[in-house]
């Protein structure tokens, strides 16, 4: 069955489905109950499932994640909402030193299948700490899985797949795409959440991206088409693990790769992808792998953020550089 809905509604519906199919699942976070979250992603869930399963918590990220770990150790499936990307850091310790390591520390005896939802990324014209992309900081930590949907279909299913996963999963939700509409097939999941998907076929170059920049990459590919360039777009979807096979296969076909993300280029996921592609498909490359990302600076103020965020023009310029080789 296919329904058109926004990404926010799709996540809401996915959470609802998870709460229905897993009696031991519960949501916890700041303002997620009566308010329905600052982005209304959890709207109506408290009314339907009760305050015990949709819990408004005190304002304390370490407390939210730390108690979620305890609940998970007791057999529950907590889904935490962190209100904004830049506010996850008070909970960073619990995520990286505790949540990520519970399974390995216990030699497989314990698991902590906690899901952490983090609205992330810029482009919403907000203030400090409301537009960051810290995914690489978490992807660097073994034990965590990191996924990010870019469309309502993925949003609906990936949150449910995250809840069902035995490992801790961080779901980075591209907040500026919450209102993006799309078809959602609610009958069955269409793909492994930890795989990449080719969202546009092409033969001359590959753009790998994820989350909020997928529509930007698609628009750039459409613009490049007018210049006679056939650009393939890969939606990474999963940042840990990364589906390197799909990327490598694409590069072997096209010979050129641009990786783009909103997070700072230095030390980011793009560097990892570039290095892997160099190792795996060096002889297929017609040009060096290029990265288009944020700068080595704090996320800038809203009035100038459009210069920070990768856009169609920056992607086209990178394609030009790639084709210049």
């Amino acid at each position, binding site marked *: 069955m296919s329904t058109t809905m926004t990404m926010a509604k799709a996540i809401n519906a996915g959470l609802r489905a998870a709460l229905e199919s897993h009696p031991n699942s519960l949501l916890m976070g700041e303002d997620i109950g009566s308010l329905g979250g600052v982005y209304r992603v959890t709207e109506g869930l408290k009314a339907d499932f009760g305050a015990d399963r949709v819990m408004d918590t005190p304002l304390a990220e370490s407390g939210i994640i*730390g108690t979620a770990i305890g609940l998970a150790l007791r057999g529950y499936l907590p889904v935490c909402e962190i209100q904004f990307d830049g506010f996850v850091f008070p909970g960073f310790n619990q995520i990286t030193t505790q949540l990520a390591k519970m399974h390995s520390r*216990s030699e497989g005896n314990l698991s902590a299948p906690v899901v952490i939802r983090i609205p992330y990324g810029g482009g919403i014209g907000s203030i400090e700490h409301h537009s960051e992309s810290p995914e690489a900081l978490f992807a660097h930590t073994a034990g965590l899985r990191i996924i990010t949907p870019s469309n309502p279909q993925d949003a609906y299913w990936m949150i449910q797949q995250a809840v069902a996963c*035995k490992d801790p999963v961080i779901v980075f939700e591209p907040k500026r795409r919450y209102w993006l509409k799309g078809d959602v097939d609610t009958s069955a999941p269409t793909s492994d959440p930890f795989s990449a998907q080719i969202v546009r076929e092409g033969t001359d170059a590959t753009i790998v991206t994820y989350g909020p920049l997928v529509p930007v990459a698609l628009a750039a590919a459409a613009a490049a088409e007018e210049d006679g360039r056939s650009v393939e777009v890969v939606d990474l979807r999963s940042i840990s693990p990364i589906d390197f096979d799909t990327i490598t296969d694409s590069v072997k076909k096209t010979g050129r790769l641009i990786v783009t993300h909103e997070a700072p280029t230095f030390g980011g996921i793009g560097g990892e992808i570039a290095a892997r592609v160099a190792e795996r498909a060096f002889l297929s490359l017609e040009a060096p792998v290029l990265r288009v990302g944020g700068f080595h600076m704090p996320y800038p103020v809203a009035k100038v953020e459009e210069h920070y965020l990768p856009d169609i023009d920056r992607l086209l310029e990178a394609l030009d550089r790639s084709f210049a080789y």
Partner: protein
Amino acid sequence: MDVGHLPASEFDSAGFEQTLMGSPEENPVPDMVQLLTIDGEVRHDPTYSSYVADLTADELRGFYRDMFLVRRFDEEATALQRQGELVMWVPMTGQEGAQIASGRALMPQDYVFPTYREHGVAYTRGLELSHLLRRFRGISHGGWDPREANFHLYTLVLAAQVPHAVGYAMGMARDRLVNPKLPEAATVAYFGDGASSEGDVHEGMVFAASYNAPVVFFCQNNHWAISVPTEVQSRVPLANRARGYGFPGIRVDGNDVLAVHAVTRWALEHARSGGGPVLIEAFTYRMSAHTTADDPTKYRLSADEEAWLDRDPLLRLEKHLRSRDLVDDAFFEDLREEGRNMAVRLRENVQAMEAPGFEDAFTDVYAEAHPLVREELNAHRAYEAGFADSDADPTAASREHTA
């Protein structure tokens, strides 16, 4: 408070307590619950005496035996570290009273979240003591299955386990709502006076109060956070902090087994029966170093340590038992023999512990298969197999790696 008033390393504890904690009217030092005097005489307490009134002579002797054996264990582990058999050890000598007496107040269905010094509590949960040494021998990050004894793994990041205990307790309460036939249960979060400064203790207590979680916060105030005294951590008695969260805080003489046992039984009953969280501050003293890498002579006075020798929890219970003719010299001689045998077995167990294969480190990083881990394992195998004296077939691993 003027920073100039902060205590130096060597301090007169009584004087500084007064300086830092303000006037008695502002921050009254809570009455310390004590049921056994330093001389081993029984004191009556209208609230708590009834919680130890049913203790039999056997149970009292059992408390002594427990404390003696875990001290012997602690001494042996320290020796094993000095001899290079352990990479590190965290001694607990001096804190036997707080640990044995609180541990013996637990029911099997309760669940303990320790820090990394709760060897005595682990013993009361029936954990095989040698398992505690696996981490310190450098062969495991854990060492035991926490579900077997409802005793969680040690946590090295200070206070991180405190919110875990709260969440677990919230889960216990939820379980009982679904299935009222389950026994009432509580968690105990152990932490030290140093850890009490960590934000996770605060956040854990906020959550515990918000959800009325059945959790007992058991703070062993052993006076030293490595080299920093309690007085630098808090300008009020730690037990007083509970008032700010809206639940009871009790300061107990941590070297008095009867008092600790009584207070913990009360707190656990309070928590299990829906009364909500309780903070216990067990006022005790770490007689040894923070870890085997520490040197307490750099920061504290020997006179201070000597003063605490008189308050030794074993000595105090021995005085009590002898005054009531509940023990004789043979009891202590038998115990020393038991301790010697235990130490021999422990040493044998430790020396038989072998390091895991490096490949095991890849095994439990994730609960479900993760391609990167698999790829790196295969690459490592291929590398290992590349040595001339290797038995493995390098081409097999290489094929798997590139597949």
